[in-house]
């Protein structure tokens, strides 16, 4: 990674964090969405602790995935408002910096939302999560990175298309099925009465992230073109 790419990525990441902390648009939407799903599910099914251990992981990751699709939608649409994407393309030495900064910001926002919602899940569903917090953090990170890397690429594509609001979830959800399955399985193992780490699932998530990150690096420039 060149110094120019790293420096541009950090500058752009700073911009993403500053604008989000100023507006709190994405974080508020996703936190409220996940909270609603968890509360509604809890009241509707009133699961026992053992049921929650079995279904909790799936519920968490479905909520995370739908929240992520809400978060990823405006990622590049924001740049179209004043054609700031063109200004960025003219300013940076490597356009991959734009995608990398968006990816880092999306991963951070998603991870922050997940960590914020984890204690709520633990309380509502009576599932202890803190003994396996470190392992959960690893799965959340790998899963969120997978969601963000694919989502950032698709957000860049869909922002320039007609029916863009419909296009992103239509493309994103099938593509992320493997991430959802692997993340859910690993999380379910961690929420078990006798927690265990499914290293096969962790490895799959790491490979998925690596493959999509490489694809983003190779084809990123074309994603940003008009």
């Amino acid at each position, binding site marked *: 990674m060149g110094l*120019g790419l790293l*420096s*541009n990525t950090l*500058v*752009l990441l700073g*911009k993403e964090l*500053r*604008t989000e902390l*100023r*507006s709190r648009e994405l974080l508020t939407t996703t936190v409220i969405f996940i909270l609603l799903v968890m509360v509604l599910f809890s009241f509707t099914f009133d699961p026992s602790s053992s049921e929650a251990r079995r279904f909790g992981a799936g519920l968490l990751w479905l909520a995370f995935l739908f929240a992520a699709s809400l978060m990823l939608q405006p990622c590049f649409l924001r740049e179209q*408002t*004043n*054609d*700031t994407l*063109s*200004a*960025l*393309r*003219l*300013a*940076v*030495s490597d356009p991959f910096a734009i995608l990398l900064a968006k990816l880092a910001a999306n991963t951070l926002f998603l991870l922050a939302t997940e960590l914020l919602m984890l204690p709520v899940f633990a309380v509502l569903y009576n599932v202890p999560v803190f003994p396996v917090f470190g392992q959960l953090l690893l799965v959340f990170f790998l899963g969120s990175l997978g969601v963000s890397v694919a989502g950032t690429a698709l957000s860049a594509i869909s922002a320039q298309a007609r029916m863009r609001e419909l296009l992103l979830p239509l493309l994103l959800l099938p593509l992320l099925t493997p991430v959802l399955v692997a993340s859910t399985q690993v999380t379910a193992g961690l929420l078990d009465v006798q927690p265990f780490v499914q290293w096969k699932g962790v490895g799959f998530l790491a490979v998925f992230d690596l493959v999509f990150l490489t694809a983003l690096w190779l084809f990123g420039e074309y994603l940003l*073109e*008009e």
Partner: protein
Amino acid sequence: MTPTDPAGIRFTHIEKRYGGLFALRRVSLEIAAGECVALAGRNGSGKTTLLRIAAQLVRPSSGDVRFTRANGQSIDGARPRTGYVAHATMVYDDLTAEENLVLFARLQGSAAPAALAERLLSEVGLRERRASLVRTFSRGMRQRVAIARALLQQPQILLLDEPGTGLDAEGLLWLAGTLRELRDAGCTVLMSLHGESEISALATRGVRLDAGSLVADTRDGAELHAIFALAGA
């Protein structure tokens, strides 16, 4: 504001199609380093597309764009420093004027982004409002920020798409003065304009597009007037 190494642009048989619609039809145009060229033409004649192709924001469907040195030789490798003012302001509404300029100065590798931003905001008359969010600005003030952004890296090539949009009489005079300085310092200027103004008077060459084709190209003063008279009609 002196560009250290003037650069020109050579368009060769440029075509741009959007589906079945031709935005540009085999446009060939050589703009020498240091020239100040005004693009005229009706709405939809292809001016903006040509400017975006010059900025390398849009890839032509066919044809070739090259940047040239003062001696006419092609520049290989890095693109010359290019400033671009578009229809949209290309700045962030949720950042202050100063934050916007510092952001783009940092991305362009400026050694002293804060000082550069402050100097340019003073030049465009927005020093007092530098800490205000751009969303609170009028159209004219946003245009001033947009012009300041385009001037950040002492451009060798300046591409302007109707740069007078939203500017008041004082703003137009300031812009004309700034462009004159840049032109005299050797900066190549390609600008699309509607009608005659203080800014069109700076052009040393006029090019007219019609339905994507280049239909007139002149350096003659009287013909330049005619081109702008047609464009403003």
